[in-house]
């Protein structure tokens, strides 16, 4: 287990809705807004917004995570945007 | 009937799992368990139907 996997849910939660840079093993690097951290595998789910309304989702597996650096805090608008990404279908229907 | 007082009833695996889930997720345990069960069902069904093999055959991490 690495240091990242040993963190507690409360630690992981502090990264949610923040723009981060994840350094992974074998010199991989990923950047994006943190949607969640799986408390079972410690995998980080990142979202990046592309120009054509598309959202790219990257999942970095917990065992591969070396360091997570916070680059930016998300404002309320960003939090709202992020919370809609995996929203269940029924709640999507009611949102504008 | 006598055996019942001597031997504890066999623990059902589902109950044990629920107790663990309660400890981890508290009030949301049942909801999380239902979501996991749905996901696992899809995984198991796909494996039964498609008989996928591990790729690569030998793990990259030994």
């Amino acid at each position, binding site marked *: 287990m690495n240091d990242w996997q040993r963190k507690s849910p409360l630690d992981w939660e502090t990264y949610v809705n923040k723009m981060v840079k994840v350094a992974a093993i074998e010199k991989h690097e990923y950047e994006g807004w943190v949607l969640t951290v799986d408390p079972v595998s410690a995998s980080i789910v990142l979202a990046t917004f592309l120009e054509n309304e598309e959202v790219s989702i990257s999942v970095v597996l917990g065992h591969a995570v070396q360091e997570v650096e916070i680059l930016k805090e998300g404002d309320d608008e960003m939090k709202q945007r992020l919370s809609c990404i995996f929203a269940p279908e029924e709640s999507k229907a009611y949102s504008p | 009937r006598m055996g019942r007082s001597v031997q504890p009833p066999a623990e059902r695996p589902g109950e044990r799992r629920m107790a663990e889930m309660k400890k981890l997720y508290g009030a949301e345990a049942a909801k999380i368990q239902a979501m996991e069960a749905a996901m696992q069902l899809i995984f198991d069904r796909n494996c039964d139907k498609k008989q996928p093999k*591990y790729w690569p055959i030998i793990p990259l991490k030994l």
Partner: protein
Amino acid sequence: ASPRFQALLGGQMTAQAVRANLRQRYLRGLGAARGRPTRFYLRAGVQVDAVFGAADVDAVAFQVDALRTPLGVQAAALLRYTDVLAYTFLLE
């Protein structure tokens, strides 16, 4: 109960609620990945494309379809969590 015990209990409940929220979001994410073309980044610089099928709940393997390996397309396959470093897919 003593205030200290109550604080402890409250802390535990908060941790459970936070864990549940993180897990729920993650499981929804797995649901969103289903059927999407996905690029998997594996150890040793290996990259493969496949269609995301499902993941088991204990984080052991991903079931994928149409896996493009250097030796051809495998209709269905399992990728080990320990081999995968990351994966990406698009939502439109």
